[in-house]
């Protein structure tokens, strides 16, 4: 009964958001029927920001970002297990969204890992999932979209940075110096060399927990491009598997790597201990710090465009 009421409320919120197209929508909670799992989605208003210049003498342009929702927490092992095991797939989703019309059965899964992909850090429900490739993270988004009917995907680099900044223009959303980083983030200074359950630190002003540190977060862009967020394209699609961009730094990084503008490049060495050949498309073996959070645009693209976001290298 509780689920029903919640489902109706969500459906109503979604309708409101889509019809108005306004920048100031409310957040909502996505539920996964057949599980006790929920994903809190924070509303991120549309707007602009000015990224830090990456090249001396080159003035960066202003980046414009359309309104979207972003999961307020990193995707957890609990959620990822639901995707791996697919045990709740057949449970009908109350108040299913209408953006995505895709049978959940038609979405292929990721392989079940043989080893402990947390490398000893734990796979408890509230821990952030790590060691996932961008392909696998995108497949999770596709599966979640098919399950819920709402269009989910990884954030673009521009969306990620814009959301992390939360309207500020300092290196961190809380200022220029890393002194108070420990209030907001698990990083090398306080993590004890491991990730931690999501959402235990203070969020940023837009309600995003662990946006710095804990696990680094996948984006849709390729690393070589310094022009993310330029007017011509929403993101720079990868042309090869490596290097892709992760943002926010992780539990093992120092303060520099956690800044709004810091970028992390994925690297083939992250799969080096995969004993199989060809190596897994879905799992790293040496990057337990590589996780993700998801977004949902408030104005979804045409269904024919979904694959641009989901079918990544």
């Amino acid at each position: 009964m509780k689920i029903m009421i919640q489902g109706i409320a969500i459906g109503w919120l979604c309708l409101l958001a889509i019809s108005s197209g306004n920048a100031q929508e409310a957040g909502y909670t996505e539920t996964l029927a057949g599980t006790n799992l929920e994903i809190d989605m924070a509303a991120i208003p549309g707007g602009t920001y000015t990224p830090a210049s990456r090249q001396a003498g080159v003035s960066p342009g202003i980046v414009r970002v359309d309104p979207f929702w972003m999961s307020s927490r990193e995707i957890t092992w609990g959620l990822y297990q639901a995707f791996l095991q697919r045990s709740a797939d057949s449970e009908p989703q109350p108040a299913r969204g209408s953006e995505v019309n895709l049978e959940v059965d038609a979405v292929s899964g990721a392989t079940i890992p043989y080893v402990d992909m947390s490398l000893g850090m734990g796979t408890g429900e509230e821990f952030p999932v790590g060691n996932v490739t961008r392909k696998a993270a995108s497949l999770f988004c596709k599966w979640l979209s098919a399950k819920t009917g709402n269009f989910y995907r990884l954030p673009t680099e521009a969306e990620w940075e814009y959301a992390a900044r939360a309207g500020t223009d300092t290196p961190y959303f809380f200022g220029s110096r890393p002194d108070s980083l420990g209030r907001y983030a698990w990083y090398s200074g306080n993590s004890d060399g491991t990730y931690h359950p999501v959402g235990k630190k203070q969020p940023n002003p837009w309600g995003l927990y662990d946006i710095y540190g804990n696990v680094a977060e996948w984006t849709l862009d390729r690393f070589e491009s310094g022009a993310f967020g330029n007017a011509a394209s929403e993101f720079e699609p990868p042309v090869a598997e490596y290097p892709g961009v992760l943002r926010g730094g992780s539990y093992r990084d120092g303060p520099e790597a956690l800044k709004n503008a810091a970028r992390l490049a994925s690297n083939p060495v992250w799969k080096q201990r995969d004993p199989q050949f060809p190596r897994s498309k879905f799992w790293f073996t040496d990057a337990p710090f590589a996780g993700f959070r998801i977004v949902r645009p408030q104005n979804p693209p045409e269904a024919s465009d979904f694959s641009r976001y989901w079918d990544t290298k």
Partner: protein
Amino acid sequence: MNNPDLPGPSRRKFIKASTLAASATMLPAFDLQAMAGILKNSKLKLALVGCGGRGTGAANQALQADPDVELVAMADLFEDRLASSYNSLAEAYQGTGKVRVKEKNKFVGFDGFKKAIDLADVVILATPPGFRPYHFTYAVENGRHVFMEKPVATDAPGIRKVLEAARLADEKNLNVVVGLQRHYQENYIQTLEKLRAGAIGKIRSGQVYWNSAGVWVRPREAGQSELEYQMRNWYYFNWVCGDHILEQHIHNIDVANWFIGEYPVSAQGMGGRLVRTGADHGEIYDHHFVEYTYPSGAVVASQCRHQPGTMYRVGECFQGTAGSVETNDAGVAKIFDLEGREQAAIANSEGHNPYQEEHNRLFASIREGGQINDAYNGAKSTLTAIMGRMATYSGQVIGWDEAMNSEVRLMPETVSWETTPPSLPDADGKYPVPMPGQYQAV
């Protein structure tokens, strides 16, 4: 009586391996090239027997371990498996000349291993483990250097055969590396050095784990013979796989033997199948819990589980008279004092890959005219896991000698497409599952 090999040769070899491992990483490529000139016949021809993901991975590592190695022959039971393995290697090594497998040197079927081994100097044996004793014996009898995957057999007659071939490998000065890659992993080697220097005193107890969600299932296809089905879905049949306590958890059980420096005198335990019970799941258990007792009195609890949605843990812990140690295959090894305060954290160096190191060491030893022989420990750690399975299946205490001398044979000595598999399904398509209190383990 049951531990003559481990504290002697294997320990010496492990120390040698660790020193060489350190120096090998510092050698630039041209030094390897110069070393290759030492041998008159400088090209080393490689054969791959068992072309699954792991065998193909091992071939990839072998091709990178030495500047003048060439894959010349491949063997697999199935043409499609061989083709996908060949295609991925041929693509990865395009233009290098390292993958030169002529069509006539791709061998399909149960006997293909002989023809492939005949053509090579070094062979990779990576089929399901039931076949290993026969493949290993043939390779050694014919003077080939060997990389073979763990486990090395599924039953005691197979273990004895491997031990016999191990002695022959010594006589012939052949190199044998077994894919228990923790022996080639920096932080395990360094941790053991600290343990041998007394960091935690004498080990009194331990816990070793391989708890995960399980592995692939290959559904039965129309038109398949029972034997083909079992070969495709081999993980679930004991004669070829030996159950997951053997196939995966051997890694952790082997670490207990290695760190304690003994093989256990007895095992007792329990297990069963609760979650993975379908006709697709053959006859193996989905969980085992075994207590191993060592000659020194140390007791090690071993647990392995294949149940989705449960806690993942792959690793080892040991408690000694002066502290404790925790290791896992990918993270940081940690040593604690008796109050639980961390004394040391030992990480692998950036870029270290124990799977690659196995082949670097194997090929370096071949070039130097040295000898590595991991087959004794490979056989005895395999037997340790088999002994655990004997204990969980039967519900009885199983002694080391009893296990070693067992005449219970799971794997037929020869297998062809005419062979009737040792386990057959009932009218409902289900296979008989070993029942404690009834199962005759030895």
